[in-house]
């Protein structure tokens, strides 16, 4: 049974119309799309901040809102937890009081407070006030507050977008640990491909108030990205690196079964390690090339060739999907089309570490 069934149509006075239908299963689902596509509106509809004109929203057996039977639960009875983009901690309460605010008022079995403090490393902050915390600490408290409500569904509205890259990666790993511990179904709004790829198992892609596509992450996002993200940098390669080790003075890891040579700096990075690189950093060849400075050469098969404005992207299946950007001339020259075998060459220096 899915955690959330969402079907809503809502016309705003500004003229924007949302007409969206999707469901959320266990695990993390991302609501992905450019800004103004209606992601946050969906979240507000689920949280009960906006009342939908038509449609039905149900959380398991709990009916949140239904236009036909005129049900619309007030926000406090919805059993969802919300982590907002701008933390929204209560300034007159301490961190501990903020954390306990939702827990005191919930009717579901309580989350272990001590365990949460330990996982999110909040122990030293408990007696402080929100304004005495850094941005990352504030967001961690907000996350804890949402989880302590033990919601049937955790909603997160771009919880990372106000943070700088380094901080974001740290919060992401806290988030991963917390979600792994409590297994709360989560709906996560983001316009950042890398965050979505890292956190989510399912994705719903929105554009202009409509669902473009939805499903499990890899295929959906890759296809959707090409449609929805008509802007630079186009699709982004974002991959998890396993089995990191030093070999003869350089660093190596594996990605989807392929050995990968990495900049030496990677060895010191804490697990899990992710790399990202642009499609333009991937070179395609029809044959294996010897005597080349590029160390990372992965054989694969072309899945599809996508034209985006005046640019050309090639999705290659090398055991996992990889995007390459080519010029129209070279695409002609290599006769790139679906099912054509190719070799992907990725320069080690182009790999950007994300951890």
């Amino acid at each position: 049974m899915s955690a959330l069934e969402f079907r809503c149509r809502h016309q705003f006075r500004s003229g924007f119309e949302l007409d969206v239908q999707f469901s959320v299963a266990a695990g993390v689902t991302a609501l992905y799309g450019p800004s103004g596509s209606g992601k946050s509106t969906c979240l507000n509809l689920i949280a009960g901040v906006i009342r939908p004109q038509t449609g039905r929203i149900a959380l398991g057996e709990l009916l949140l809102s239904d236009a036909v039977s005129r049900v619309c639960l007030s926000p406090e009875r919805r059993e969802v937890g919300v982590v907002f983009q701008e933390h929204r901690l209560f300034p007159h309460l301490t961190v501990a009081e903020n954390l306990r605010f939702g827990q005191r008022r919930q009717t579901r079995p309580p989350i272990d407070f001590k365990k949460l403090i330990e996982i999110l490393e909040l122990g030293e902050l408990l007696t402080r006030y929100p304004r005495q915390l850094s941005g990352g600490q504030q967001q961690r408290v907000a996350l804890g507050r949402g989880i302590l409500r033990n919601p049937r569904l955790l909603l997160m509205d771009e919880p990372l977008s106000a943070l700088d890259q380094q901080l974001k990666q740290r919060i992401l790993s806290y988030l991963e640990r917390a979600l792994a511990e409590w297994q709360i179904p989560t709906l996560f709004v983001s316009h950042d491909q890398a965050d979505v790829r890292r956190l989510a198992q399912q994705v719903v892609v929105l554009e202009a108030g409509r669902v473009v596509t939805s499903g499990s992450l890899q295929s959906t996002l890759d296809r959707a990205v090409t449609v929805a993200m008509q802007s630079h940098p186009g699709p982004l390669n974002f991959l998890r690196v396993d089995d990191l080790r030093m070999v003869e003075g350089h660093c190596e890891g594996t990605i989807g079964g392929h050995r990968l040579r990495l900049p030496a700096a990677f060895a010191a990075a804490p697990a899990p390690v992710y790399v990202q690189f642009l499609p333009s950093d991937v070179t395609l060849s029809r044959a294996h090339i010897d005597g080349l400075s590029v160390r990372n050469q992965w054989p694969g098969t072309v899945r599809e060739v996508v034209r985006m404005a005046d640019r050309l992207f090639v999705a290659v299946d090398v055991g996992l999907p990889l995007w390459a950007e080519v010029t129209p001339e070279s695409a002609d020259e290599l006769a790139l089309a679906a099912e054509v075998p190719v070799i992907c060459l990725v320069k080690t220096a182009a790999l950007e570490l994300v951890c």
Partner: protein
Amino acid sequence: MADWTFTAEDWSAIGLSVKVSLTAVIVSLPVGMAVAWMLARKKFRGKWLVETLINLPLVLPPVVTGYLLLVALGRRGLLGRWLDHYLGLQLVFDWKGAAVASAVMAFPLMVRAMRLAFSAVDPRLEQAARTLGAGPWDTFFRITLPLARNGVIAGAILAFARALGEFGATIMIAGDTPGETRTVPLAIYDLLNSPNADAHVWRLLLASIAIAASTMAAGEYLQRRGAEDSAAS
């Protein structure tokens, strides 16, 4: 050298003033908070009318306000009859009438300060509280009111100080009975009309200045302490 000791009548006037003003503030506080909150948070039809009515006592001559209250609350007035019949309350020519007059006159000031305070509370915090399981009342008392605390205190203090000085509307509805409805301003007015009472007048003048000043100082102190609380490390 003038005699600076208060007479029994002076004490009665001072006590009455404090009693009337305190009653006025305590009775109008919940109403004032509710109205201020509605004006700050809600959009509704006829909002301009509510605002105009509340602010009317600020611009009407107090005597006119007093007369209107007298008409409404008098024995033949609609409200007066109802209060008498159901609650056995007779407000006219009674200290309770003086409290009503003070409350009405002070109400716009109270609401203005509280409304500003409620408007300054970020409604997104209230939303967050709701999503965390707090109902509307819970949210008001745990989030909105504590965050608007200083403004609410300021509103109450201001109303108290304004009530202390109430004269025109009070004399219309409550009259000027010594020991019953003669508050400090009325007592001063009476003394000014009697011969050789200069020293006596000064005593009462200083007393009313002292009460008003200590009220404002107390308000200032409470607000400053509130500010320190929220800045505490």
